[in-house]
């Protein structure tokens, strides 16, 4: 058991965490940064320090720019503890973790939770079959290992990451059999309301147009407005069936990459007992914080995508803002408002396109709330949508009761991959808003750790 004390403990080495650590160091605070991965970068800049030049070329400028942040972090003087599994965060600033088989404690005057985002679950029939993965997962394989699909790949869903991965695959010479787009065409109309904001984020829009043009150039079959997705196969994926323009289409696939946006990874903030609210635009939970990211009256702050989805650049700015506020509390910064103002302007600029994106790429109800009762909602304990509905009929009002009745959320992922689906399923069945249904009561351990690790 080792113990380290610092002014500022950061959880997560993505943009928000690294930027916060740099900012805090620049005001003389002692900083310890814990991250589950061995190397810094988070998921967005995964492997950026060590990626060879051809991989940087394939992944594009927005990835390569991550090196600015990783090198700033490396020379900041913050202490980095890699391979650290955080299993408990107390509201007083104590963080318990396990690394290399034994436990450690980092005691911070303040703690920043910067645990980032995860891909939104895509609960459709057959989504548990080997060969079905998240598009973000495949991108991590490309960033971390340079791995590309061996044969033609099928991409399905919606959201910027899906098109970005397609573009990166084409640049790397990988072959795409089909892109099955689930974007709701009526969403284009809704999204038009946010065009002013989108124009402020014209750079992001221009990127999107460039990606689509690349797909056309490579003659990738793009099916748009698809519904009724179902994965085919018995013991592994064999294909994807869907409805397109009123017709049932089937495409063969041995590798199917699904994606419908990312959602905040809120496991840590929930575990601290903090209040959360349902974000109806982004269709996910987000912790309730003050403007600087502080959770209630605790020593804990949240920044970046784990607070609400804002993207990499805005996450870094938000991390800096949280670090500034903490430095001010510790007396290391006296002119907080003056220093924060330009960062706040940056934040607004980086997030101006968000309402447009959230509206345009709003995942379809049918891909979040399975109507097909046979769809597995809880992958770990293999609980179906029909079972959850049955527990609601028996009187269960929320996810903790359905969990008690049918073990949904009791497996090793601890509810991470079924939680949103269960909340929305119960809300739909009861006919009440998600806020009234609530979420799992997340308790330590935040991630599974062995009993032996807790004794060493």
């Amino acid at each position: 058991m080792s113990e380290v004390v610092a002014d500022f403990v950061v959880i997560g080495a993505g943009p928000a965490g690294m930027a916060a650590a740099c900012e805090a160091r620049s005001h003389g605070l002692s900083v310890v940064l814990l991250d589950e991965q061995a190397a810094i970068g988070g998921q967005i800049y995964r492997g950026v320090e060590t990626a060879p030049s051809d991989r940087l070329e394939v992944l594009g400028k927005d990835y390569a720019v991550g090196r600015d942040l990783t090198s700033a972090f490396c020379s900041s003087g913050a202490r980095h503890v890699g391979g650290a599994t955080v299993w408990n965060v107390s509201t007083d600033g104590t963080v318990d973790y396990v690394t290399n088989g034994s436990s450690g404690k980092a005691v911070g005057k303040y703690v920043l939770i910067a645990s980032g985002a995860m891909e939104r679950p895509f609960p459709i029939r057959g989504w548990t079959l080997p060969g079905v993965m998240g598009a973000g997962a495949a991108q991590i394989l490309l960033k971390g290992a340079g791995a590309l699909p061996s044969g033609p790949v099928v991409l399905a869903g919606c959201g910027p990451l899906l098109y970005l991965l397609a573009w990166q695959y084409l640049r790397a010479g990988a072959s795409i059999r089909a892109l099955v787009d689930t974007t709701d065409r009526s969403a284009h109309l809704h999204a038009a309301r946010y065009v002013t904001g989108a124009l402020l984020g014209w750079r992001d829009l221009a990127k999107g147009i460039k990606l689509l043009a690349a797909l056309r150039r490579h003659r990738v079959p793009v099916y748009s407005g698809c519904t009724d997705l179902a994965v085919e196969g018995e013991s592994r994926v064999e294909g994807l069936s869907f409805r397109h323009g009123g017709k049932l289409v089937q495409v063969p696939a041995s590798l199917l990459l699904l994606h419908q946006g990312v959602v905040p990874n809120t496991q840590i903030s929930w575990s601290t007992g903090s209040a959360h609210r349902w974000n109806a635009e982004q269709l996910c939970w987000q912790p309730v914080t003050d403007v600087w990211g502080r959770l209630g009256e605790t020593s804990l702050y949240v920044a970046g995508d784990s607070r609400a989805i804002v993207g990499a650049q805005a996450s870094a700015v938000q991390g800096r803002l949280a670090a500034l506020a903490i430095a001010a509390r510790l007396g290391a910064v006296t002119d907080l408002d003056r220093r924060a103002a330009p960062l706040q302007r940056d934040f607004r600029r980086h997030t101006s396109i968000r309402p447009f994106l959230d509206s345009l790429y709003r995942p379809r109800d049918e891909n979040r709330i399975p109507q097909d009762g046979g769809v597995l909602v809880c992958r770990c304990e293999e609980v179906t949508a029909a079972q959850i509905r049955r527990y609601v009929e028996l009187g269960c009002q929320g996810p903790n009761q359905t969990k008690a009745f049918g073990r949904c959320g009791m497996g090793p992922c601890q509810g991470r991959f079924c939680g949103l689906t269960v909340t929305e399923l119960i809300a739909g069945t009861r006919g009440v808003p998600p806020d009234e249904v609530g979420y799992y009561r997340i308790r330590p351990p935040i991630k599974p750790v062995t009993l032996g690790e807790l004794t060493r």
Partner: protein
Amino acid sequence: MTTEALFSIPHTAVVKTVTIIIDGKSLTVPDGISVAAALLAGGVRDFRSTVVGKAPRAPYCMMGVCFECLIEIDGVPARQSCLVPVRDGMRIRRQDGAADLVTANLGDVA
């Protein structure tokens, strides 16, 4: 179950390799990548079978949240292979159903 790999790692990307052992078979893989990446590129299609329905599963998220890539590594069952970097001589076994403390203890621990 090894078969044609879903992913491949072009040789240009490889600097140094290590050898890992999956269910008794040697696999030469690039150093520095995760066990999950190594197995996917090495032709392992399913990593384990589920406890409840004995259904085959393989990695889904590659970032430590879905727990589908659980596998026995160096005698310790149910490790998240997407979070563990490969190491030369590492012994890996696919997991059939629930983790088995007894055989894990008698297993390949160095």
